[in-house]
C-alpha cells in the first residue's frame, strides 16, 4: 500500500498548473453533467 501512496503523492506534487486545471475541469464537468442532465435509462428498473 505504501508504494502506491508514495507514487500517488509524487505524481500529485509533480502536476503542473495546467494539469491541475484539466483535472478540476473534468471533475467539475462530470459532476455538472450528472447533476444537470436528467436522462432516464432503461437500466433503472428495480433500482
Amino acid at each position, binding site marked *: 500500500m505504501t508504494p502506491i501512496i508514495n507514487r500517488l503523492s509524487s505524481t500529485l506534487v509533480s502536476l503542473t498548473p*495546467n494539469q491541475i486545471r484539466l483535472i478540476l475541469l*473534468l471533475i*467539475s464537468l462530470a459532476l*455538472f453533467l450528472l447533476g444537470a442532465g436528467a436522462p432516464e*435509462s432503461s437500466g433503472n428498473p428495480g*433500482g
Partner: protein
Amino acid sequence: MILMSALLLGLLAGSCRAKVRGYHPIYPDLSWPWLVGIAFIPQFLAFHLEPSREICPDWLASGALVGSQIILLVFAWVNRKITGFHLLGAGLSLNLLVIALNGGLMPISPETVMKLAPGAPAHSWQTGQRLWAGKDIVLPVVNTHFWVLSDHLLLPSWFPYHVAFSIGDILIALGAFWALWMVGNPASSNLKMARQTVGNNPGYGD
C-alpha cells in the same frame, strides 16, 4: 452515459485538435469549482446511493434535485465567460424550468417509458409516481407543463443503449463538448483567461 460520452469525446477531440494545430492544450481556470461538489451531494444521496435513495421520499428527492440544480446554475453563471458554459447554463435552465413546473422532478410520459423499457414489469412503474427511484416522474402529456422540454427524446431503437433525454440534456452535452473542444483553439477565451491567471509560470502548457 450519453452525457459522459460528450465529455470523453470533447476531451479527445480537443486534445487532437490542439495536437494537429501544434498547440499545447490549455485548460481554463474555473471559478468556484467546489460549488459543483456541494451541488452534487444532495443528488448523490437522493438518486445514486442505494440505501438512501430507497428511503428518500418524493418531496425530499424533488427538493434535492431543484436545490442542487439552482446551485449548478450559479456555478454555470460564475463561469459563463468560459467557452461552452453558456450552453451548459442554457440546457440546465431548460431542465430546471420543466422540472420546477412539474413538481420538482423531470416529467416523462407513459408512452416514452413503454418505448424506453418495453420489457419492464408492469408493476415497476405507475403514472403519477417517480420512475424507478430516479429523477423522473411519469406524467401523461396532457398533464405536463412544457412537455417539449421533458424527457421525450429517445435514441434510435437499433442503438444498444436505451435512454430518454430532453432538449436541455442535448444543450448540456453540446456545452461540455464545446468547452473541451475549444482547448485546442489558440484564439479561444479559455486561452486568454489562462494566460491572465498563469502569467510566467514555467509549468504552463505542459
